[in-house]
C-alpha cells in the first residue's frame, strides 16, 4: 500500500477489506434471514418427520393455538418472564451495590457470583433437580436433621414448580446482571459523587438521586438480555422439570422442540417457533424504537 507502487484500481486495492467486512456479516445475516423465512414457509406445510412441500394454510397455527401445552406455556412464559427478569435484575443490582462498597475479597466474591455462568444449563437443571426434590434434597436434609415438619416441595407442586425454574435461572444468570450493573456503577462520574457529598447527601439519597438514575440505560440492557434468556429457556427446564409435574411447567421453547422433534410434527413446531419469534419481536421492537429515539436525541444534543 506504499505510495509510488504501480497503482491498482481502487476496488482491487480495497478488496481484502471489503471481503473482511462483508463476508462474515453477510453470512451471518443471510443465515438468520433465510432460516427465519424457511421456518415461516415450513409452518404452512404439512411437514412431519422431514420438510415437505405443500400448503395447509393456517392449520398448524390453529392446532398449536388450541393445544393445552401451548396455552400453559404462554401463561408460564408471562409469569416466568416477568418474575425472572425483575428478580434477577434486582438481585444483580443489590449484589453490584454491595460489591461496590470497597469490600475485602471483592475478586473472590465476584467470581462466586459469576461462576454459574460457566456451567451448562443441563448441569444447572440436573443439580437443582436434586436439591429441590423433596425426597432427595433440601427437604430431606432438613428432615434428617430433625425438623420433620419442614416443607419445601415446590418441585412437585403444580402451582409452585415454575418458581423452581425462576430460582435456578436467577442463580445461573444474575451474575451477568451484577457484572453489568457493577460496570455501570464504576463508570458513574466520581466528580458528581464528590460534589454531592460536599452538599451533604447521605448514602441513601445519593443512590436514589444520583447513582441509580444513571444506571437506567444499563437496566434496559439487563432487562432485554434477561428477557431473551427467559424466552429461549430450554435446556434448564428440560433437565429440571421436563415440563412437569404433569404439563405444569411447559415453556414455548420446550413446546417448539417437542413438536418438531419429539412428536415429529415439523409443521406445527415451525408454527410454534414463528409465534415465538413474534413474541420476541413484540419485546424487541419497543427496545429498538427506544434506542433509536435515544440516539437521535443524543446526536441532536
Amino acid at each position, binding site marked *: 500500500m506504499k505510495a509510488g507502487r504501480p497503482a491498482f484500481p481502487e476496488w482491487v486495492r480495497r478488496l481484502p477489506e471489503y471481503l473482511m467486512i462483508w463476508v462474515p456479516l453477510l453470512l451471518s445475516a443471510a*443465515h438468520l434471514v433465510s*432460516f427465519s423465512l424457511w421456518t415461516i414457509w415450513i409452518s404452512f406445510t404439512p411437514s412431519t418427520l422431514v420438510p415437505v412441500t405443500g400448503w395447509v394454510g393456517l392449520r398448524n397455527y390453529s392446532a398449536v393455538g388450541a393445544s393445552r401445552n401451548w396455552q400453559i406455556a404462554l401463561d408460564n412464559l408471562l409469569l416466568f418472564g416477568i418474575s425472572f427478569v425483575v428478580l434477577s435484575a434486582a438481585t444483580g443490582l443489590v449484589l453490584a451495590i454491595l460489591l461496590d462498597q470497597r469490600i475485602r475479597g471483592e*475478586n473472590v*466474591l465476584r467470581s462466586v457470583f459469576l461462576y454459574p455462568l460457566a456451567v*451448562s444449563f*443441563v448441569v444447572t437443571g440436573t443439580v437443582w433437580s436434586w436439591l429441590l426434590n423433596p425426597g432427595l434434597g433440601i427437604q*430431606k436434609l432438613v428432615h434428617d436433621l430433625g425438623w420433620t415438619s419442614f416443607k419445601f416441595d415446590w418441585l412437585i407442586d403444580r402451582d409452585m414448580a415454575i418458581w423452581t425454574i425462576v430460582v435456578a435461572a436467577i442463580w445461573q444468570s444474575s451474575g451477568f446482571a451484577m457484572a453489568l450493573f457493577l460496570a455501570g456503577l464504576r463508570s458513574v462520574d466520581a466528580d458528581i*459523587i464528590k460534589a454531592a457529598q460536599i452538599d451533604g447527601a447521605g448514602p441513601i439519597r445519593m443512590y436514589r438521586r444520583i447513582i441509580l438514575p444513571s444506571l437506567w440505560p*444499563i437496566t434496559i440492557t439487563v432487562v432485554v438480555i434477561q428477557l431473551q434468556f427467559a424466552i429461549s429457556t430450554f435446556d434448564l427446564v428440560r433437565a429440571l422439570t421436563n415440563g412437569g409435574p404433569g404439563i405444569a411447567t411447559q415453556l414455548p421453547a420446550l413446546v417448539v422442540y417437542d413438536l418438531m422433534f419429539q412428536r415429529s410434527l415439523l409443521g406445527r413446531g415451525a408454527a410454534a417457533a414463528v409465534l415465538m419469534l413474534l413474541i420476541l419481536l413484540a419485546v424487541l421492537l419497543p427496545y429498538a424504537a427506544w434506542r433509536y429515539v435515544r440516539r437521535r436525541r443524543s446526536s441532536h444534543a
Partner: protein
Amino acid sequence: MRERTFAPSRVLIYLIVLLVAAAWLAPLVVVVLNSLRTNEEIAQGSMIGWPQHLAWSNYAAAWSGFCVAETCAGIRPYMLNSALVTIPATIFSTLLGAVAGYAVSLWRFRGDTWIYGIVTLGLFLPQQMRLLPWTIVLRDIGLINTLAGLVLIHTIQGLSFTTLFCRNYYVAIPHDLIRAARIDGAGFFRIFWRIVLPLSPPILIVTVIWQFTHIWNEFLYGVTFTSGQQQPVTAALIALSAAVADIPQHGVQSAAVIIAALPTLLIYVLGGRYFVRGLTAGAVK
C-alpha cells in the same frame, strides 16, 4: 458508595454478601461432595451428604474409565473434541466480530445499520429452530459429521454476540483519532491493527469468555452433527445421566461434571475481573 462508612453498616454488608455467596456456592459444594461419594452411598442416602470415605476413584472413572457404548475412555477424548471445536470457533468469531464491529462503528459504510441490526437479531433466534436449516446447509456444503462444520456453525452464530459487543465498545473510540489516521493515509487494516486492536483487550476478553463457555456447553448441535468418536463433552455427560435402564451413577456423574466444567470455571475465575472491566468499557452503551 466509595467512602468507608462507620462499622455497623459494614458488618451488615459483609453479612449479607457472605450469606448470598454461601447460597451461590451451595450447589457447587453439593456436587463436589457427591463426586467423593460412591454411587451406592448416594443411592442409599440423600443427594446431600458428607462422604463416608473419600471416593477418589470417581475421578479416575470419570476421567478415563466409564464407558459410552464400546468406548471406555472416560471423559478425556470428549474433552479434546470439545476443545477442537471451541478454541477455533471462539478465535474466529471473536476476530471476525471485532473487524465487523470496527467496520460498523468507526468505518461506516452504506447499509451498515441494516446489516448490523439483522446480525444482532441473531442473539434472539432460538437454537431449536435453526437445527434443521443447519442440517440442510451442512449437507449442501459437505461438512456434516465434521468438526469443521461445528466450527462454522458456532463462528457464524457467534458473530451476533461478538459484533454487538465489539461495536458498542468501539463506538466510544474518538472518531478524531480515526480521522487523523485516515488523513495520514492509513487504510482499513492498518487502523485496525495499529489503533483499534491495541485498545481492544477488555472487550475481546468479554467475547472470548462468552463464546468459549457457550460453545463448550452446547449439546444439541454437538450430538446431531458429529459421529461417535467426535462427540463433545456434553454428550458424554448426558450419557452418564440418561441411562434409563441403569442405576444412576451420581458419584461418577458429579466428578465428570466438575472435570468438564473446569475449563470454563477457570476462564471465569481468571477472567472475572476483566469481564466486569470490559463490560464497563463496552457493553452498556
